[in-house]
């Protein structure tokens, strides 16, 4: 089984590697580093290269000759027998999740020359090249699945550690999804949808001048006004005022949202965690909650001397309810057995809270925060319309009073955009904090 003759020269090794599916796209630098790891070996016809159940140490790449690769029946490969020739790769079991043994028996059919690469050395090399390493691993996975017809469940390759790989793979995943999306009819239907909406608006108001629609600001009027350097009604992308209103609204929501998050999460955790606290406090909470936030407007003006505080208070209150309630539900949703397991493993109450309750409630907390940022905008707009100076709600209301109709639509559209952006930011923060959940969902989707 040992190598005796100088079988494969180094240049040749690179050529062989390039023919192998996993390394086909690798850069010359990486290829030569992989080639440096490769040890040539030669097997006589009929010689057993390895047997299923052996330790899975080396990966083999065939340089010449032929070998029969026979899977163990447990593997469940669709075709148990595969014949590998030049460029064929086998002995990859060590790359699979949790696999340390050979899954197949390989026998040389003719005199066969191979390159042997130590699996761990290869993985270490790939880890040092996060970008390309990830691609090589991905190609390994694809090859194992397609060329060897191994069931998907088994054919899961190890994950390279290191943060960069993660970003790369998520980026390439995003690109992949994007290309899939572009190939589907969805983007085109979406364009049709937008065209219909805008078209009807345009035609109804400006061309057909339908009754009632006639009074509304038309599409072209609004767009012209919005993008005009010298707007008729004083507000466009080019005026400083426009940004001032946005900043004021965003700043108000930010304050309210952060205050509500800090207080709401704390309060919700307490509600969920301590039965006594919940029994005492929750009834009062539930008693106040049915009062619509917007019904608080006049009282808030009375309570807070400064209108600014009143406006923020209203936005805060809405957020607070949503966050507190969802946090409480999150704590209650945690499976009892996680808490039991933690106490079994010797965790103290404080540790259970820190390591089980908090992360376990996080998905619900973030659902709450998503709702919270939405309702925060919802109440802010109302509050700004009723009282307060500056802000997008104020723009919409004063534009109505001052009969600057196109500006109303500009205000609404801006509000939609800004509101959407803030929700997206909250969602991103959630995904960042709950990587485990993102991955679980991604797996479920596949």
């Amino acid at each position, binding site marked *: 089984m040992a190598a005796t003759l100088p079988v494969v020269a180094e240049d040749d090794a690179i050529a062989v590697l390039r023919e192998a599916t996993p390394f086909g796209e690798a850069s010359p630098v990486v290829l030569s580093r992989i080639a440096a790891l490769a040890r040539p070996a030669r097997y006589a016809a009929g010689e057993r290269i390895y047997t299923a159940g052996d330790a899975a140490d080396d990966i083999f790449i065939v340089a010449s000759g032929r070998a029969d690769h026979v899977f163990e029946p*447990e593997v469940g490969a669709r075709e148990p027998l595969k014949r590998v020739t030049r460029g064929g790769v086998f002995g990859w079991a060590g790359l*699979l*999740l*949790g*696999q*340390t*043994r050979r899954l197949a028996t390989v026998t040389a059919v003719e005199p066969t020359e191979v390159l042997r690469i130590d699996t761990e050395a290869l993985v270490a090399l790939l880890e040092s090249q996060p970008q390309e390493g990830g691609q090589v691993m991905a190609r390994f996975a694809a090859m194992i699945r397609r060329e060897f017809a191994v069931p998907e*469940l088994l054919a*899961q390759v*190890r*994950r390279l*550690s290191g943060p960069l790989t993660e970003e790369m793979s998520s980026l390439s995943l995003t690109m992949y999804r994007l290309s899939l999306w572009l190939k589907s009819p969805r983007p085109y239907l979406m364009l049709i949808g937008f065209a219909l909406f805008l078209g009807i608006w345009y035609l109804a108001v400006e061309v057909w001048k339908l009754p009632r629609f006639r009074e509304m600001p038309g599409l072209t009027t609004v767009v012209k006004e919005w993008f005009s350097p010298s707007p008729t009604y004083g507000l466009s992308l080019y005026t400083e005022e426009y940004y001032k209103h946005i900043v004021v609204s965003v700043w108000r929501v930010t304050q309210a949202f952060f205050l509500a998050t800090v207080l709401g999460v704390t309060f919700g955790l307490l509600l969920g965690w301590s039965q006594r606290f919940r029994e005492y406090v929750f009834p009062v909470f539930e008693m106040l909650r049915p009062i619509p936030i917007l019904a608080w407007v006049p009282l808030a003006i009375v309570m807070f001397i400064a209108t600014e505080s009143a406006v923020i208070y209203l936005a805060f209150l809405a957020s607070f309810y949503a966050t507190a309630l969802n946090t409480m539900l999150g704590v209650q949703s945690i*499976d009892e*057995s*996680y808490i*039991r*397991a*933690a*106490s*079994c*493993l*010797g*965790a*103290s109450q404080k*540790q259970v809270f820190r*390591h*089980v309750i908090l*992360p*376990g409630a*996080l998905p619900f907390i973030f659902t709450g925060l998503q709702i919270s940022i939405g309702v925060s905008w919802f109440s802010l707009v109302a509050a700004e319309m009723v009282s307060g100076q500056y802000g997008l709600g104020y723009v919409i209301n004063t534009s109505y009073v001052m009969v600057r109709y196109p500006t109303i639509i500009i205000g609404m559209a801006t509000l939609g955009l800004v509101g959407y952006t803030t929700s997206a930011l909250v969602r991103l923060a959630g995904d960042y904090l*709950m*990587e*485990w*959940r993102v*991955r*679980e969902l991604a*797996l479920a989707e596949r």
Partner: protein
Amino acid sequence: MDMRPPPPATQTQGHLLIDDVVKVYDPEGAAVLAVDHCTLEIEPGEICMIVGPSGCGKTTLLNAVAGFHDITSGRILMDGEVLCSTDRPRSTPGPDRIVVFQNGALFPWKSNLENVIFGPVMQGKLGRREALDKGRAMMGDAGLSGVEHNYPGEVSSGMRRRVEIVRALMNDPKVLLLDEPYRALDSLTKSVMHEALLEIYYKNRVTIFFITHDLEEAIFLGHRVAIMTTRPCKPKKILTVDIPHPRDYSVLTSKRFRELIEETNDAVHEEALKAFQAGEKEG
């Protein structure tokens, strides 16, 4: 697999005595008798299988040992030390008796390795670095290298169960309490898991208290199999499995295995029928 013959019970730790335990749920209201004067002794290093239909009350017994539920009367001792008794109805959960749960309780928000080192780190027994080293080594021994940095949600359910058992063994428990851990697995995965469990067992020889409703699983794994009556739960018949350890899957086709199944099948079936007629739900 470890091919050495099984050492005769060399374990000195992990003796479990369940002595005349009674559990009544809701004593003032509906008063459901779940466990009725149950007595069971488990030797150190023994695999004792508890077999009974779903909802027969065997999990109640396990919860009492683990310290999740009170007992109404009787007592439970481990290595001569009283865990709980009529006067102190609930034992304190601790790392000497670790439960592997029915649906798995690996924390989904921690990577497999983080899960494995959870016990020693929480107890302050090991520093984080030492724990990581030990955890990696133990995962490697259990054939789990490569999934350390994956989250539990990313690996197969069979692998998750193995990680969970490694997490338990990291604490050098005296007793492992397994509550139908392989219930949700398909029969092929199950068979792999059984051999893996035995392999781990031959290395550690920890006392195993294993709850199941699968008679074949019980006879394949256990030194003894206790068949429980359905609500109230108490041993109906205790079978000593005289197939020598270490066992592997060839045992399943052996004559003795079949004989043992035949011997006990009626008893189990009878209880299952009773449970079915009583309309008990899963539990």
